[in-house]
């Protein structure tokens, strides 16, 4: 951390350590520890937990990155996959001087206290790059795992999809089953170059006591496509994230798909922002959320049309299963050019009784029918996602079918 070129970021970060974020509750970061107190290892329990967020450690054919607390346990095979590079960020920054131009470029280090702490207490993170015109067949996997009680993990991730390349990255973030309190402040800067495609799927699986503040920005150049698929199923203490896509090049596209099952006392403030800066750029954001228990969900979506022939569409579909849960949809459309076309639709309601009764008339119990309907409502059908991944997400959702897992009653 002593490199001279980073001093300016450190200085800026120090000035922002108490700066509140624009959205979400303020978290006291002094409550957490910054060095691990367990010996990082990859036992069966860890592998199982990792698989739950879509990352298969045993898949020897994919590029795979696995970080527990601050230690990189696996960064495998990337060198053998043509056109793919996968390294811990600190190693990559030492190796490539040019990479400094991508460091804190899409995001500002002084955005808030979380970006600041990520610079001051950085704990590795991954660097992934697809070489120009390379199409990486298998999804690249990355898992950020918290193993120590009370740990704050702050990785800095950089993904670069070079001109004309295509890449599919699946990342899972999770905590050890024994870990209760934890915090994750992941910084992610993505660069999608001319005519490149990056499909980025993130599956989160936290604990009841996990605080999560990811900070993500992506810059998409001419003709480039960025697709983000985000899935959150298990309870979390408090998560807030608001990734931003800058569509800087003509004809660039960004699409965010967000699927959430909010349960227990989870506080979830998730949204995204798409800036249609260049001519002919297109942004779309779709949220599907089911809220149960005492969960509080905020869906923020913003699309800004700043140039001619730009288009944007926001959609929020919410299902609310318990009287103690809440969903707030906050769509914002901002037109800064006369030739932009922006729209949004939002619908929040309870489970449709007609559908429930219909399934019950087939002899299906109410509990199982609710599980099936919730699963169907959230069913991904995510574009740009390989069938295998799609099936994995469906598998995660199948945990919601309470009767098939033999678990308890409606959590209201």
């Amino acid at each position: 951390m002593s490199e001279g070129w980073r001093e300016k970021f450190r200085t800026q970060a120090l000035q922002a350590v108490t700066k509140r974020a624009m959205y979400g509750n303020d978290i006291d970061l002094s409550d957490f520890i910054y060095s691990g107190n367990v010996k990082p290892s990859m036992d069966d329990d860890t592998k199982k937990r990792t698989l739950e967020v879509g990352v298969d450690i045993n898949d020897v054919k994919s590029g795979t990155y696995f970080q527990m607390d601050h230690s990189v346990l696996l960064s495998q095979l990337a060198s053998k996959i043509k056109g793919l590079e996968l390294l811990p960020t600190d190693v990559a920054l030492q190796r490539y001087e040019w990479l400094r131009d991508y460091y804190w470029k899409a995001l500002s280090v002084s955005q808030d206290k979380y970006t600041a702490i990520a610079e001051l207490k950085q704990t590795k993170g991954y660097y992934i790059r697809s070489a120009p015109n390379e199409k990486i067949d298998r999804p690249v996997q990355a898992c950020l795992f918290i193993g120590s009680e009370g740990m704050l993990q702050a990785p800095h991730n950089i993904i670069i999809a070079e001109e004309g390349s295509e890449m599919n990255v699946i990342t899972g973030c999770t905590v050890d089953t024994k870990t209760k309190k934890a915090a994750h402040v992941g910084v992610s800067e993505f660069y999608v170059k001319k005519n490149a495609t990056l499909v980025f799927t993130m599956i989160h699986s936290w604990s009841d006591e996990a605080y999560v503040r990811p900070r993500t920005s992506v810059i998409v150049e001419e003709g480039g496509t960025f697709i983000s698929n985000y899935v959150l199923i298990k309870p979390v203490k408090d998560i807030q994230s608001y990734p931003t896509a800058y569509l800087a090049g003509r004809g660039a596209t960004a699409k965010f798909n967000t699927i959430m099952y909010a349960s227990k006392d989870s506080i979830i403030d998730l949204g995204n922002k798409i800036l249609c800066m260049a001519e002919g750029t297109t942004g779309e954001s779709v949220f599907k959320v089911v809220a149960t228990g005492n969960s509080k969900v905020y869906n923020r979506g913003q699309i800004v049309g700043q140039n001619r022939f730009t288009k944007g569409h926001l959609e929020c579909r919410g299902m609310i299963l318990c009287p103690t849960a809440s969903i707030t949809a906050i769509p914002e459309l901002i037109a800064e050019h006369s030739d932009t076309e922006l729209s949004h639709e939002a619908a929040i309601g309870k489970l449709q009784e007609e559908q429930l009764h219909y399934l019950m008339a087939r002899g299906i119990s109410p509990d199982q029918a609710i599980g099936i309907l919730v699963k169907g409502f959230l069913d991904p059908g995510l574009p740009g996602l390989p069938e295998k991944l799609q099936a994995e997400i469906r598998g995660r959702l199948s945990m919601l079918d309470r009767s098939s897992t033999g678990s308890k009653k409606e959590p209201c």
Partner: protein
Amino acid sequence: MLLEIEKLHVSVEGKELIKGVDLKIDYGEIVAVMGHNASGKTTLALTLAGFPQYKVTSGSMKFDGQDITYKTIDERAAMGLALAFQSPPAIRGIRLGHVISLAGGVNPWSPKPSDDLDLPQRMLAKVNLDPQSYANRELNVGFSGGERKRSELAQIFAMRPKLMILDEPDSGVDIDSLKIVGNSLREYFRSNRCSMIIITHHRHILQYLEPTRVHILSGGRVALTGSYGDLMPKIESIGYERLIREAGKSE
């Protein structure tokens, strides 16, 4: 008797829609329920199926020897009472094949080794829906009128019910689909001898099934009962209203 309904009164949101219906159906018997719109046919079907908004205010319903008045929709279905809906909902994200499996008692997400895994394909074949593609289709999404009716039959066939209540299996259906619906119902009856209540406006579907009796509902009551051979030509020539009026006079 498989089904015994006595002096049944049913209200929806305080409004009485069934005003004292008596109806008996034996094991292996097919009856038709006819009548003009809003005469109470669908109300009777949904009350029998157990839909909670249809409140039984007096009278009794016995199915297979048990009082079912306070049983839930799924409990009645499990007892062998299957309803084919007149207008089934389309549900995104749910596959038809999965619902057929569930109707047949198989959990498609975690089947047991002994489970009948080809059930959806076999049931779909019975109603001439391409087994491979329709099993994976979202439930009724983008289905034509005829496809919806056939999807309903595939689902209730899988339940192996004792009584089928078919709420207008022939409405909004083209002539080809009507043949498929009629033939598959006749075929199912021949091999399973399950009882059926067919709610319809038309003779065509009844030609496949030849009910033993026809009941004509009017204003929430059974206004007229007779044999299929006797009543059907009269309904077709003079209509429900006049037929009921004239029957009233002659009594």
